[in-house]
């Protein structure tokens, strides 16, 4: 623990930290361009120069390890002169086109030149011009503005794990480019836009849309996958202009996936903004009171066990809870479920459906075994963590299937369930590796749970881990990788029907009324069912509906989401629902009032407190399912990993033009075959 002085303030820092970090600890702010906490140190921008006693020259604080007895000065004229000199060099070739630059207002170079910039340039020569580069449909380049901090290059190689960016040439001719100008093949690529301290890499879909000071900023959570990345939603009036990451060290660190960032333009398209009723196969606009009346008469004219309901993949927990209450209290019926497929789930214990080791735990793990999961597409941010663990600790990764490039090397097995069986019966080499690992992680994807013998396999894996004492106080090796934002929340709320298979009954057309809340993934042939669809987008669910109730998307209502680790986070309202649309819980509440002349809840607060109460009771209550269902004989199956189309995994993404472009650019690369 070296002790040093920064501006005469004594600080003690941990071993291995740099002078820059010591200065920050002492409260002295150091300007920087190339240095970034999450990336390796490059030390090439020279902006962080400070004065060190006994050193004739200023030192680059980001690259200098803090040592015992150093005496650092950051506020002397000597330092200011050095930084001014550096800034003059940086500005020599930087076009001063801030008025037409999208980075304007949130540009590190602009901000720092306010302090260290010289008002006149001594550079009489022509400024250099660098041709623009093609970096795909998300990243707009203006490489003349580049100051060669190489943050983007380091991000691509270290975090994203795709070594496609590089600096070619040298000196004044240095350029940042992808190899032969292909677009970057990464689901994290757009993070380089946030990293770029100048306007060289900016967001293509957001180009010339708004200035940062015009936008209303709301900190909320993302629902594009089950990770629950923390994001900031920037809105201009009703429109969501962009989504940016905010730091949460436990979940997304500083990154978000491209889908999280760019599916937001799907919030503007295909929106349901008024109630609709289908007459003779055509949708016609209606008023809320009309549709409620029709729904009421429909419910009254059919027997209660002919009614069923499904909750979708993007609904928040309040909506799920009031939906459940609506069925329990208003309709006196438990025909509701949140699953759109026949997946195995034993919800008697919470650990059976969450990611128990936690995302942070990935970095402590010494063996990761992926079964039926492709984390790169199912949970991009989580995959970046696995890569981080691999880079830092050389964590061993095994996957049952060959799932293509995961951005880190892994050993793949044959993809047969027989292999899982033999491994978890303890007779394989890998069984011994799991036993000898101190903190193994078994990551089970949704694809495994959909198999015929999923129950046996799941219990076999769990028992194997139990027998070998892998469940310890600080470690739970069992991890379920959910794909959708609402999955864990719905399971916590018990929106499940374990008594009968609703899906099968739906497929055999046993119901008269089907109530869908944001559920677009059901596959059944509609016959005479009366379908009520409540949701934000006109998608598969709305297509088959007889009545459409326009709801809100995740940016338009407050609501809780539980991420795959079981962490509950609140998404805040950034915008308001379009047209006649209402918040989802409100619709159900009002419908209940029409049906029974009594609202389910007086207001949102009552709903929330009731929901928390329910969750608390669930936690305390140990549900014991004693009657063992008969287990059918094990049969070997090929485990196919079913991934929904990455760029079209939910209604918002399906309505997004940017996602279509991303998908197309990927397809083009595939079809030319020249990608190497």
């Amino acid at each position: 623990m070296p002790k040093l002085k920064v501006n005469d303030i004594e600080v003690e820092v941990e071993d291995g930290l740099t002078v820059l970090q010591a200065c920050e600890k002492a409260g002295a702010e150091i300007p920087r361009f190339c240095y970034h906490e999450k990336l390796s140190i490059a030390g090439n921008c020279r902006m962080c120069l400070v004065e060190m006693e006994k050193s004739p020259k200023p030192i680059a604080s980001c690259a200098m390890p803090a040592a015992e007895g150093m005496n650092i000065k950051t506020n002397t004229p000597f330092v200011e002169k050095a930084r001014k000199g550096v800034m003059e060099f940086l500005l020599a070739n930087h076009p001063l086109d801030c008025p037409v630059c999208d980075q304007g207002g949130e540009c590190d170079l602009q901000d720092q030149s306010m302090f260290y910039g010289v008002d006149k340039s001594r550079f009489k020569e022509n400024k250099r011009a660098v041709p623009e580069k093609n970096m795909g449909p998300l990243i707009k380049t203006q490489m003349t503005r580049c100051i060669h901090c190489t943050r983007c290059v380091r991000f691509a190689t270290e975090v994203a794990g795709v070594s496609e960016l590089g600096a070619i040439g040298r000196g004044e001719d240095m350029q940042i480019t992808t190899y032969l100008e292909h677009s970057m093949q990464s689901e994290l690529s757009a993070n380089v836009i946030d990293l770029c301290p100048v306007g060289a890499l900016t967001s293509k879909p957001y180009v010339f849309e708004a200035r940062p000071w015009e936008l209303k900023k709301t900190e909320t959570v993302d629902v594009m996958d089950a990770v629950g990345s923390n994001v900031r939603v920037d809105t201009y009036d009703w429109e969501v202009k962009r989504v940016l990451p905010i730091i949460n060290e436990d979940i997304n660190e500083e990154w978000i996936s491209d889908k999280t960032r760019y599916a937001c333009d799907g919030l503007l398209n295909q929106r349901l903004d008024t109630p609709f009723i289908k007459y003779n196969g055509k949708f016609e606009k209606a008023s809320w009171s009309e549709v409620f009346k029709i729904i009421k008469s429909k419910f009254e004219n059919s027997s209660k066990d002919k009614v069923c309901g499904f909750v979708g993949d993007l609904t928040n927990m309040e909506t799920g809870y009031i939906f459940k209450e609506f069925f329990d209290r208003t309709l006196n019926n438990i025909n509701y479920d949140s699953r759109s497929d026949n997946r195995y789930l034993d919800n008697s214990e919470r650990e059976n459906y969450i990611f128990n080791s936690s995302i942070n735990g990935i970095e402590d793990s010494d063996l990761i075994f992926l079964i039926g999961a492709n984390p790169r597409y199912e949970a991009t941010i989580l995959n970046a963590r696995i890569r981080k663990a691999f880079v830092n600790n050389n964590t061993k990764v095994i996957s049952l299937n060959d799932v293509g490039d995961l951005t880190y090397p892994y050993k793949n097995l044959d993809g047969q369930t027989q292999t899982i069986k033999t491994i978890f019966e303890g007779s394989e080499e890998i069984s011994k590796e799991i036993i000898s690992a101190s903190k193994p992680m078994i990551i089970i994807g949704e694809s495994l749970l959909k198999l015929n013998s999923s129950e046996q396999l799941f219990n076999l894996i769990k028992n194997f881990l139990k027998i070998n004492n892998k469940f310890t106080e600080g470690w739970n090796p069992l991890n379920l990788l959910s794909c959708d934002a609402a999955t864990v929340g719905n399971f916590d709320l018990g929106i499940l029907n374990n008594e009968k298979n609703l899906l099968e009954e739906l497929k055999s057309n046993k119901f008269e009324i089907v109530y869908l809340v944001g559920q677009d993934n059901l596959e059944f042939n509609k016959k005479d069912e009366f379908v009520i669809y409540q949701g934000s987008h006109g998608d598969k669910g709305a297509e088959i509906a007889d009545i459409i109730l326009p709801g809100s998307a995740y940016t338009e209502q407050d609501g809780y989401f539980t991420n795959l680790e079981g962490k509950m986070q609140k998404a805040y309202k950034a915008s308001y629902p379009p047209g006649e649309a209402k918040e989802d819980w409100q619709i159900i509440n009002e419908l209940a009032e029409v049906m029974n002349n009594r609202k389910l809840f007086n207001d949102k607060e009552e709903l929330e407190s009731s929901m928390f109460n329910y969750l608390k009771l669930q936690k305390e209550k140990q549900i014991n399912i004693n009657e063992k269902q008969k287990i059918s004989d094990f049969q070997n199956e090929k485990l196919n990993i079913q991934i929904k189309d990455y760029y079209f995994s939910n209604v918002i993404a399906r309505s997004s033009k940017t996602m279509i472009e991303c998908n197309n650019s990927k397809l083009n690369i595939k079809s030319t075959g020249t990608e190497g």
Partner: protein
Amino acid sequence: MSLRRPAKNQPETFEFSSSSLKEANKIVLKYPEGKQQSAVMALLYIAQKQNDNWIPLAAMKYIAKFLDMPYIKVYEVATFYTMYNLSPVGKYFVQVCTTTPCMIRGANKLVEACKEKISDKENELSNDKSCSWMEVECLGACVNAPMMQINDNYYEDLDKEKTIEIFDKILKGEDPKPGSYRGRLNTEPENNRKTLMDTKNA
């Protein structure tokens, strides 16, 4: 010096010949397991030698695969160092030293000869595509100035006529004799001088 870009016309494929492969494997062996990427510069040079003094993109890809490293990293190295040629320079690559000692001893005459016999401009192929020339900084043979380098060999103590003679030979496909063109052995003193004190024959 401008950014050297890869040539427009690129060969489709590249592979090490058996002798290059042998040499490359020998170099890779020098590095410890897992650090084979360190051999990239030597391998680029081998590829350049094999391919008439220039490195096509196919060779960069080949080397990237050979050393199991990302293409862009090889590309970065190849574009950084000026002694890797990224477009064809001909089978005979002439580098004329024009740094001060050579300049004083008449290097500009050598440049004239180049312009006459090879091409008007630097870095441009001769009519038969076998040869190109460029001015370079000191090649470290100031004692024998003026001089030039053709591929691996130094041609020293030149004047315009002798340079033209050499070019005539290489354009015919012959290999001219390297070394001094005033009959010196290496850098020995001329006119039988034995010591610096001996000013008799200076």
